[in-house]
């Protein structure tokens, strides 16, 4: 008799839901179970996946980061402005943006750690700050016409899979998202830092008494979240081929929802980026179904996401109760 460890119940639920949703979609709509739909699912949710991976680190450590969406917008407009207005090479612009994102996250972590302020408050301020900064960089959206972005990044580097009539091209953004998930998975699973993130989120006092460097863990997750938010911003910019300071309002909520639906405990300590990936796909699939349905309006997505979050939070509560 194999008994499933309780910590795996949420992620298995997510996986089951994902399969069930996909099957239900395939049964209900013609053309649903097609390579094109799956491709779009990946392409349209790549930036959400990257942002959610960063949020996973923070939530695993038991904290929360509300600045994700604003940092994405700030990076997006920043990269666009650097490329189009300051003639910076796209690769250099992207590097600058990623470094700035990581630094921003680190500063938030430092403020939380040194002043012992609640994470939600500091990152709330961070959300304001980054949003204001985005508009300060440039008040309107900027289309990116740099040849390197259009030709190299978005075209030549796309992977063309020999499927269907003309092949299916998978853009670099999807590769980036998959790579981001893979790196995060390795860091969380197989480095001392990764394990200490789990330990801090699970039982901070024990982690301290077991001699772990909990301060490094708590600072590190915010730096990583900042970096991943910036990367999500870059992916978003490539996807849209423009930078927009007003983009991704409230996007942190989607990221947190994906993390929770992916089976990560909001208290911290349990979860995985693989689960977050599944959570992102599930969110995307729900969106796709609502689009296919046609007569269901888009706001149903928000309600369904809200209910899913509630269900998972309740499930987690039950599991936590059994732990006692």
């Amino acid at each position, binding site marked *: 008799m194999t008994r499933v460890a309780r910590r795996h119940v949420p992620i298995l639920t997510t996986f089951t839901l994902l399969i069930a949703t996909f099957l239900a979609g395939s049964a209900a709509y013609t053309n649903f179970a097609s390579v094109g739909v799956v491709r779009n699912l990946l392409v349209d949710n790549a930036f959400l996946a990257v942002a959610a991976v960063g949020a996973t680190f923070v939530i695993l450590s038991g904290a929360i980061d509300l600045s994700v969406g604003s940092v994405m917008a700030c990076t997006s407009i920043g990269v666009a402005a650097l490329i189009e207005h300051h003639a910076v090479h796209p690769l250099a612009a992207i590097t600058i943006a990623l470094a700035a994102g990581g630094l921003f996250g680190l500063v938030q972590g430092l403020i939380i750690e040194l002043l012992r302020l609640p994470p939600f408050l500091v990152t709330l301020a961070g959300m*304001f700050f980054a949003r204001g900064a985005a508009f300060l960089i440039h*008040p309107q959206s900027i289309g990116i016409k740099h040849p390197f972005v259009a030709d190299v990044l978005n075209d030549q580097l796309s992977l063309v899979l020999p499927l269907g009539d003309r092949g299916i091209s998978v853009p670099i953004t999807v590769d980036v998202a998959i790579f981001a998930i893979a790196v995060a998975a390795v860091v969380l699973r197989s480095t001392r830092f990764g394990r200490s993130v789990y330990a801090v989120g699970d039982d901070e006092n024990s982690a301290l008494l077991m001699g772990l460097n909990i301060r490094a863990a708590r600072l590190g997750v915010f730096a990583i979240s900042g970096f991943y938010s910036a990367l999500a911003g870059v992916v978003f910019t490539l996807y849209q081929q423009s930078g927009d300071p007003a983009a991704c309002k409230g996007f942190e*909520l989607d990221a947190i*929802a994906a993390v929770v639906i992916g089976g990560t405990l909001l208290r911290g300590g349990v979860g995985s980026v693989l689960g977050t990936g599944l959570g992102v796909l599930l969110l995307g699939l729900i969106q796709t179904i609502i689009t296919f349905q046609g007569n269901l309006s888009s706001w149903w997505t928000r309600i369904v996401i*809200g209910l899913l979050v509630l269900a998972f939070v309740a499930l987690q509560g039950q599991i936590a109760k059994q732990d006692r």
Partner: protein
Amino acid sequence: MGSEKRFHPAIMTLAWPVAALALLVVFNLAFTPGFFGIELRDGRFFGTPIDVLNHAAKVAIVAIGMTLVIATGGVDLSVGAVVAISGAVAAMFVTRSQASFPLVILAALAAGGVAGLCNGFLVARLRLQPIVATLVLMVAGRGVAQLITDGLIITFEHRALSSLANTAFAFIPIPAWIALALATAVGLFTRRTAAGMFVEAVGDNDRACRYAGVNDRAIKLGVYAFCGVCAGLAGLVECSYIKAADANNAGLFLELDAILAVVIGGTSLSGGRFSLTGSLVGAILIQTLTKTMYMHDVSADVAPLPKAIAVLAVCTLQSPVVKDRIAGMFSRGSA
């Protein structure tokens, strides 16, 4: 430490935001031409101070409910979404039904109350962390509002409802009166009954309260429900002001402004003592700051940046670490 405390602690916590507000007023007197200009048109006053009051009122109404929630050691992130729901309910009632005006108001407030009860249930009964519990409604609430309005911006021509936020009494816009009346009522209720003491006590040490026979769950359920009603009221004011219900943008980021108003007003995020007056001052301070920036050609979009810096400065001053440092400096000075 020979000297006795000269000031009541409540006055001391008010000192910071009031001083900041005074500073801002002086700055505007000196550097912002026309900041205090008021003119009379069509029997109503127009001008920056009136604008500030009008907008601050909305934040203040939500902040009053938020003050009580934060005093119990919680927080409510869903108020923005609840504002959208209540606005949607009000707009649908006046456009799709012949309901009398009081009934419209009642329906909007009830929608807020129900939303608040949901939050309260999750926090008090299921013992979820407040941030998590209210996050659910924060995510789903706007969807519910859009469901009600069918995703449209519902505009309406309804004399009574649109006059709610667009008329003045004794030169002061009605929303400001509403906020003031609400604050007074809540102030009287919390201080004349035992509610205020219970709220502070639960926020300070809920376990000890349970041991003393205080029904801490009921208190928590009550404050979240009330916070929902406040958000409902703010939703009415907002939809009355723009004569429409916009499920996407009504109350956007209002939860942030409300939390900031409360924190600036001196109520600690860890719960315990609260100051309603402080929250009112906080709401006015935030709105004055915003308006000042607009008048100095800082665009509405960039405005969050300086706001964030202001918020961090205030929080830093109130953080336990800095407080201890300052206290340490003083005790060394007097020793």
